């Protein structure tokens, strides 16, 4: 208990440092939130497409064409191979849909007829493809449930409208996510700085040769001593996490209460663990508690610059990002970027997040091993 209490007594001596670094996050992340709130919205632009309809324009075929007319600009073209190719070459048309003969009949008969597509592969094409495939997917799903064509069509529209609404909501969320991402990425700097400063300093104080000689000669078992330090550090880490979550809510609003928000928070937790392991290691190698300050500048400031906590990673040169791979902050910030652009946590996004998290945990383990090596060397006296 003595050690636990003393840990926090010493920490209180450094309260101004903690407050200073914390306010930096609030200030810069808060500013970023303001300047970033108006994002260009690309999804309102309509892609240019062309439809070659070899089927009769009735029933579901007619509905598909009308749906596409709503979502896209239909180019006015001569229906010839040459004209279509020219239009695609000059990017007057990004996406061409060939509806085959008997499409309607085959579709209703659940024969899953193939629709041929030609596309340029640019942004417009992607947008058109998204709209077209959305209709087709819903239609393919619903045709299994409904025999009546009218019912099928009205059901398709219901589903599509619902999904579009979700889409719209997500679009609003992306600006919110950008705020959050900025906040959490910037927080990596403050967290790293505070953790290194506080933990490394306190550990250096406890492990300073003069003081540790007194501890060593006392009747307190050294394992118990280490346990107390560990307990105090953990409480500190969790408290730091809670503070930064609460600040996230205050600074960025209710975006935190989404799946993405939770993901940021979990990511931050893993990062704090990693930062703590790193700080404990630093605390064990520095000879003098004043060296912690220098470490903060080198490591916290350095890795925050290199890893895109201040400047978004896409603006950083490649070689910088390559170097940044050896720093935990890189993986943390990278995960934040993925969370920002993620609507459902599955597939590749989830994979990358898991890999990044594993790397952070790997770093933590590495630092723990290094700490053990260093401190067992230190305990051996000659």
């Amino acid at each position: 208990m003595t050690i636990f209490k003393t840990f926090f007594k010493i920490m209180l001596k450094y309260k101004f440092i903690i407050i200073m670094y914390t306010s930096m996050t609030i200030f810069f992340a808060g500013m970023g939130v303001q300047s970033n709130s108006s994002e260009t919205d690309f999804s309102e632009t309509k892609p240019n497409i062309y439809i070659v309809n070899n089927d009769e324009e009735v029933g579901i075929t007619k509905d598909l064409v009308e749906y596409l007319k709503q979502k896209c600009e239909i180019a006015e073209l001569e229906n010839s191979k040459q004209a279509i190719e020219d239009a695609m070459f000059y990017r007057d048309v990004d996406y061409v849909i060939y509806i085959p003969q008997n499409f309607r009949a085959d579709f209703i008969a659940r024969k899953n007829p193939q629709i041929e597509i030609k596309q340029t592969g640019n942004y417009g094409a992607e947008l058109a493809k998204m709209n077209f495939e959305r209709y087709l997917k819903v239609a393919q799903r619903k045709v299994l449930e409904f025999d009546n064509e009218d019912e099928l069509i009205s059901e398709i529209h219901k589903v599509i409208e619902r999904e579009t609404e979700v889409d719209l909501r997500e679009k609003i969320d992306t600006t919110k996510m950008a705020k959050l991402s900025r906040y959490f990425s910037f927080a990596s700097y403050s967290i790293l700085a505070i953790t290194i400063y506080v933990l490394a300093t306190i550990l250096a104080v406890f492990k300073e040769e003069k003081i540790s000689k007194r501890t060593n000669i006392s009747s307190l078992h050294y394992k118990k001593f280490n346990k107390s330090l560990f307990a105090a550090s953990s409480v500190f880490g969790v408290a730091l996490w809670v503070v930064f979550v609460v600040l996230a809510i205050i600074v960025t609003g209710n975006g935190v209460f989404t799946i993405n928000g939770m993901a940021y928070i979990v990511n931050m937790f893993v990062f704090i663990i990693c930062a703590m392991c790193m700080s404990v290691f630093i605390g064990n190698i520095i000879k003098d508690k004043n060296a912690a300050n220098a470490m903060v500048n080198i490591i916290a400031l350095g890795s925050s610059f290199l890893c895109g906590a201040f400047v978004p990673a896409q603006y950083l040169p490649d070689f910088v990002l390559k170097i940044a791979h050896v720093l935990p902050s890189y993986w943390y910030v990278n995960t934040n970027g993925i969370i920002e652009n993620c609507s459902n946590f599955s597939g590749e996004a989830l994979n990358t997040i898991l890999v990044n998290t594993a790397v952070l945990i790997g770093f933590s383990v590495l630092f723990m091993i290094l700490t053990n090596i260093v401190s067992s060397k230190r305990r051996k006296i000659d």
Partner: protein
Amino acid sequence: MESIIEVKSLTKRYKEKRAVDDLSFDVYKGEILGLLGPNGSGKSTTMNCILSLLNFDRGNIKIYGKEMTPNAYDIKRKIGVVFQDVAVFDELTVYDNIDYFCGLYITDKKMKKKYVDDAMKLVGIEEYKKYFPKQLSGGLLRRLNIACGIAHKPEIIFLDEPTVAVDPQSRNNILEGIETLRKNGATIVYTTHYMEEVEILCDRVIILDKGKIIASGTTDELKELAKTKEKIRVETKELGNKEIHEIKKLSCVEEVLYKDNILEVMYTDENNNLENIIGYLKSNNIKYSRIFSERPTLNDVFLELTGKELRD
């Protein structure tokens, strides 16, 4: 006498240099044992070896009849150490510092509070309990250092040069504190290179040089070792070679020095020397201003044994 610490053939080498060379001695219950020696003679090294803070090359340490190891926590509980360097937390107040080090041994809150108060009283720093170490004078800092080492009321106390670079007021305070600790029943190993302190404080003295024991015993016993039993100094301007030659022939005179108008006469016996020399001066009509008589000091003993001064 019950021996509490037994040191046998302790040898500690740094590379080829023997910092401690085949030391053997016992510490008895309730005594203050002085380890006296010049800088670098191996006092701190001996202490750190006894405390298992240093690995040593050869030898054997027993405390309360049990071998001392880094994991002998039941023995450690009974030991208090005040190291040569001040070792306190800059971030904690005087009170919190003592509270921390006491708390390493004592878990009961009430008892701990009382012990911390007692320790502050013993070294006289109650007024400064809310001060931080940086705000204390050198002497007060030393007193805090001592309080931190003895607050848990240990039975055996090691003090490594606790009065180095301390003002006279703090020094007296510290020496009184150590007396009090002994009165309360502690056994004390006191390391110093101030022979005056040893003479005031210690029941027994071990004199170290180059890691070896060169003499040991009570201060009186040690002084017996000196050939010179009394030294008489006379301030006079009127001596020539003839007189000096005559003084050398007086009874029990071992050596005569005359330099800067000061005559120094060393005697191998301590009886009637003053009378003899004054008689001689009077009968030869030699004027003198002042005369001092000195008993030999431990410094003289050290000088005779090693050919060098204890302090440089």
